C-alpha cells in the first residue's frame, strides 16, 4: 500500500504534449460542460472514497506569491503574483492504493474528465509516489 500524489496542471511547459484540440481553457466552455466537469470531479472523489483509496483532494488558487528569507531580523522578501506564469498547479488528489498500476489506472480515469461537448479532456496527470516508511525487514 502506498500513497500517490496526482497533480493537475493548468498549464505545463515541460513534459509530454497535449492531445490536439483539448487545450481550450475551462472559462471558455459552455456552462453545461463546466457543470458536467465539476460533477465528474465530485463523483470521482466519491468513488475513490467508496473504494477505500481516497486520502485528500485540494484545489489551489491560480495566483500565489513567492516568499524568501532575507536575513536575521528582516521581514521576508516577497515577489509576485505572476498572472502570466507558464507552469501552474491547479490542485491535487492524494490516493492510497495497492500498486503503481492501480495509481496509473486512477490517474487515467481522472484524465477522462469531460470537457467541451462532453468529450474527455485527455489531460496529463502527473503521478508522484510519496516517500513512506522504510520496511522493518531488509536483510
Amino acid at each position, binding site marked *: 500500500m502506498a500513497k500517490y500524489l496526482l497533480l493537475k496542471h493548468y498549464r505545463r511547459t515541460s513534459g509530454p504534449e497535449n492531445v490536439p484540440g483539448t487545450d481550450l481553457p475551462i472559462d471558455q466552455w459552455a456552462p453545461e460542460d463546466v457543470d458536467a466537469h465539476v460533477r465528474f470531479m465530485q463523483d470521482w472523489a466519491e468513488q475513490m*472514497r*467508496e*473504494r*477505500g483509496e481516497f486520502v485528500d483532494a485540494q484545489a489551489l488558487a491560480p495566483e500565489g506569491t513567492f516568499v524568501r528569507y532575507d536575513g536575521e531580523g528582516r521581514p521576508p522578501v516577497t515577489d509576485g503574483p505572476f498572472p502570466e506564469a507558464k507552469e501552474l498547479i491547479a490542485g491535487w488528489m492524494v490516493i*492510497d492504493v495497492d500498486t503503481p498500476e492501480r495509481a496509473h489506472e486512477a490517474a487515467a480515469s481522472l484524465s477522462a474528465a469531460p470537457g467541451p461537448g462532453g468529450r474527455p479532456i485527455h489531460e496529463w496527470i502527473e503521478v508522484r509516489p510519496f516517500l513512506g*516508511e522504510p520496511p522493518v*525487514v*531488509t536483510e
Partner: protein
Amino acid sequence: MVDVHGDGFADLLRELGPQVLGVLVRRGGDFAAAEDAVQEALLEAVRRWPDDPPHEPRSWLLTVARRKLVDEVRSATARQRREERVQREPAPGPTEQADDTLLLLSRCCHPALSPASAVALTLRAVGGLTTRQVAQAFLVPEATMAQRISRAKRTVSGQRFDQPGDVRAVLRVLYLIFNEGFTGEVDLAEEAIRLTRQLAAATDDPEVDGLLALMLLHHARRRARRTPTGDLVPLAEQDRSLWDTALIAEGVDLLQGALARDRMGEYQAQAAIAALHDDAATAEETDWVQVVEWYDELVRLAPSPVVLLNRAVAVGAADGPLAGLRELEQVPDDVPRREAAAAWLHEQVGEREEAARLYAVAAARATSTAERDHLTRQAARLRHP
C-alpha cells in the same frame, strides 16, 4: 466483575470482541452480518456496563451479539435458512477458541482480498482495533478506512469457505502488517506479533513459528534501528547492547523448534538469517558463510529479485566485494535498493567515486525519507573525506 472505569475496560472489549466474532462465524453466521452484530454489542456494552457490569462479560457479549445477529437474519426472510443453522449449532466449548482464531484469520486474509483490504480487515476484526485506529495507523481518513473495511467484509461474505483456510495467505498478511514500519498510536509491529502468537497457539505449522521467530528476531533490534533523532542505523553500525536479548532468546528457541520438525519454509529460512545476525556480538563476527547458505535455501524455496540482491550482499561479505559484484549482475536493474548494495560493494573494493555516485542514485530512488537521508549522507561522506 468488570472494572468499567479503568483503562482495562477498552482492552477487555478489544480482547473479547474478536473472540465473540469467532464464535458467531464458526456457528455459521455470515461474516459481514456477524461483524456488524459484534460492533453493536460492543457499543451496547460501553453504554450499559458502567451502570450494570456483567459477571460474565464474554457470555454477555455473545448473548447480545447473537441476539442482534438473529434479529438481523430474521428481518431478512431470504436468509431464513442461515438463521436455522445458527440456532441448531451447539454451544461452544472453551477449547474451541484457538480454532476460532484460525477461522477468523483465514476469513480476513482470504486470497480474494487485496493486501491492503486484508490488512485492514484483520486489524479490525481479529486485532479488535477501532476503524479510527486502523485509519490513523495508515494515515488515511477514517471515512476511507471505514469504506475499505466494509468493502472487504462484502468481498469475504461472498466467498465460499469449504476449505479449512489458507495459512500461507494469513502469514503473508501478518508479515505485511509487521513490515509496514508505522508506529503511530498503535504499534503495528507489536500488533502483528500479538496476532502471530495467537495463530501459533492455534496451529501446528512450523512456518507459523518461523514467522513469529522472524518477527521477534527483528523486533529485538528496534531500539538500535534509529538514532534518538530518528536517523536510520544500518545493521553493521547498530549498538548491539541495545538489542533485546530476551526476544532474541525466544526467537531462537521458536526457530529451533520449527527447524526440528523438518518442514522447511521461507519464513524459517528468513528467521535463520536474522538469528545469525542477532547471534553475532559484533558485525565482524557475523557468520557470513552460513548466512549465504541460508540465502541459497531461500533462493530455492522462494526465489525473488530481492532475495538475489540480499544474497549478493552476503556473498560480498563472505567472499569479498568482487564476488558480491559478480552476483549482483544477476539482479535486475529495477530492484529497489540495488544501487545502495552496489554502492556498498564498490566502497569495499575501494572505488570511492563510483560508490559515491551510486549512493546518490540510490538516494534519488529511495522509497522512504529515512533511507533517502541515510544514503545522501553516505554519498556526502565519500565525497568529503
